[in-house]
């Protein structure tokens, strides 16, 4: 199974003479979608039997390409091989079934027409449903919050559960809680508070994450506010591990401890995280800062990375180490920490303004082109400054700890049952 999957992925990289030859040659039992265990025969069979003509149809009927999306290229080739040229994957993809418009067009119209609420967008752009669907509502909520900072009122009901209750839902309906550890630095006090919380709430799993912090898994929804209260009391805030927003800033120990360190990579990481936290972005954003080119913080596969060198800071971006693995692209060299911070904020702001909802930085960069991004955030200093200022302005509304708000009673309805019924007397 694994062999065919790998063969398939290798093929997707291109280079074959007949682009469909390799998928045609696969046997019917070759696994195409590793997430959902869907083989070739099931996909081609469903296309033929049910007359499927689009990727969405195939997703709905077979589940192939319906989870992580890695196999999407293969599935599209199978559609092409099965129904021929009538399948056109390059056609404009509508945001969802509620509209014919694509993401870019909708966003352009939100700004051009001054649309400032989800109902206004849906009415003005003639949505075909009464209040959208689970695809368009989170996307619109993001575009509105990014385009109208301070004016648009966040619509909690249009957010996925994780961003609504500020924790990550798990397979059994419990949640995981990840406090921020700025730049991956913690302290005995924080660690004691985390240990106490785990004991007090009988939290079954405590795990170190890949982003240099600690994950408490298996917290009951009704316990979340009390867990946060204890973490807040020890000075910790939400790590936003659930958010399409700033996630982690990994660091190495840099010139503080390492004999090779050229700059204070830890300090810069902490500074960046304290400046950037709370921002909403099209998809999650992860950073890393390494103190020298040995790159112990693995900055060259992050959305944004910094490699400290003797003369300053090499800023890189558009890496990926998930569904795809991709090294970063060089962005520029900065001479000071201040310049580095300004460039990174400008880059994130440009991404906030241009990225399509759920599009990671490396995909956005591939779509708009590295040169155009450099022109905005490196070469044109006045554009960079304006982007930076817009980012700073929106941070003024974004940097509120959502855990503390909920400890203080916000959205209490999320965390308590409406009513509890015990066993009827007769049953006792």
């Amino acid at each position, binding site marked *: 199974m694994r062999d065919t999957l790998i063969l398939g992925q290798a093929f997707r990289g291109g280079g074959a003479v007949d682009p469909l030859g390799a998928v045609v040659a696969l046997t019917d039992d070759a696994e195409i979608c590793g997430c959902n265990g869907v083989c070739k025969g099931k996909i081609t069979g469903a296309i033929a039997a049910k007359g499927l003509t689009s990727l969405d149809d195939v997703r709905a009927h077979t589940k192939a390409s319906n989870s992580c999306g890695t196999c999407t290229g293969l599935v599209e080739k199978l559609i092409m091989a099965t129904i021929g040229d009538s399948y056109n994957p390059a056609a404009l993809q509508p945001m969802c079934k509620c509209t014919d418009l694509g993401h870019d067009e909708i966003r352009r119209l939100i700004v051009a027409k001054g649309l400032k609420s989800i109902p206004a967008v849906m009415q003005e752009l003639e949505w075909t449903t009464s209040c959208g669907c689970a695809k368009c*509502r989170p996307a619109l909520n993001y575009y509105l919050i990014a385009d109208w900072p301070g004016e648009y009122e966040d619509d909690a009901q249009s957010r996925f559960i994780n961003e*609504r209750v500020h924790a990550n839902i798990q397979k059994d309906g419990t949640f995981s809680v990840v406090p921020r550890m700025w730049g991956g630095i913690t302290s005995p006090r924080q660690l004691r508070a985390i240990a106490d919380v785990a004991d007090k709430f009988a939290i079954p799993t405590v795990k170190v994450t890949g982003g240099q912090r600690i994950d408490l898994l298996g917290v009951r929804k009704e316990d979340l506010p009390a867990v946060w209260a204890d973490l807040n009391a020890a000075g910790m805030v939400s790590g936003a591990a659930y958010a399409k927003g700033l996630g982690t800033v990994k660091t190495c120990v840099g010139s503080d401890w390492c004999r090779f360190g050229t700059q204070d990579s830890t300090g810069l990481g902490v500074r960046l995280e304290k400046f950037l936290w709370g921002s909403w972005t099209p998809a999650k954003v992860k950073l890393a800062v390494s103190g020298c080119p040995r790159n112990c913080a693995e900055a060259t596969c992050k959305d944004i990375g910094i490699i400290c060198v003797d003369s300053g800071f090499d800023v890189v971006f558009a890496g990926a180490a998930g569904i795809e693995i991709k090294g970063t692209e060089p962005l520029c060299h900065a001479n000071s920490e201040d310049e580095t911070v300004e460039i990174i904020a400008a880059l994130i702001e440009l991404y906030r303004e241009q990225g399509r909802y759920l599009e990671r930085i490396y995909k956005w960069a591939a779509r708009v082109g590295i040169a155009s991004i450099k022109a905005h955030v490196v070469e044109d200093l006045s554009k960079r400054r304006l982007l930076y200022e817009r980012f700073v302005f929106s941070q003024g509304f974004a940097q509120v700890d959502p855990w503390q708000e909920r400890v203080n009673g916000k959205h209490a309805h999320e965390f308590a049952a*409406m009513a509890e*019924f015990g066993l*009827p007397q007769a049953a006792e």
Partner: protein
Amino acid sequence: MTEEWTEIGRLSDIPRRGARCLGTPFGRIAVFRTVDDAVFALEDRCPHKGGPLSDGIVHGTSVTCPLHNWVFSLETGQVQGPDKGQVQTFAIRRDQDRLFITASIIPAIAAE
């Protein structure tokens, strides 16, 4: 047979396009409120892998399961689209702001 009703709370306890839960000894019931204030009560357990439907996004008279995005009709409890499955629905009644659910909820779930 006349239906017996149990009061469960107020319409205003539930956000529009949202849900709240009722705890029962036999499992949770999700009470949904749509954009135009219709209310529905469904078993809070997705037939796919047990996801809590009360945590899903509510749109029109549907809810999308938060775990793998199956979509359910709030009216019938049926899965929409090509997926197969159904959740139990319960009679619910609104009198102005007051909400009542069929008093049969506990035996109904226990009988499963």
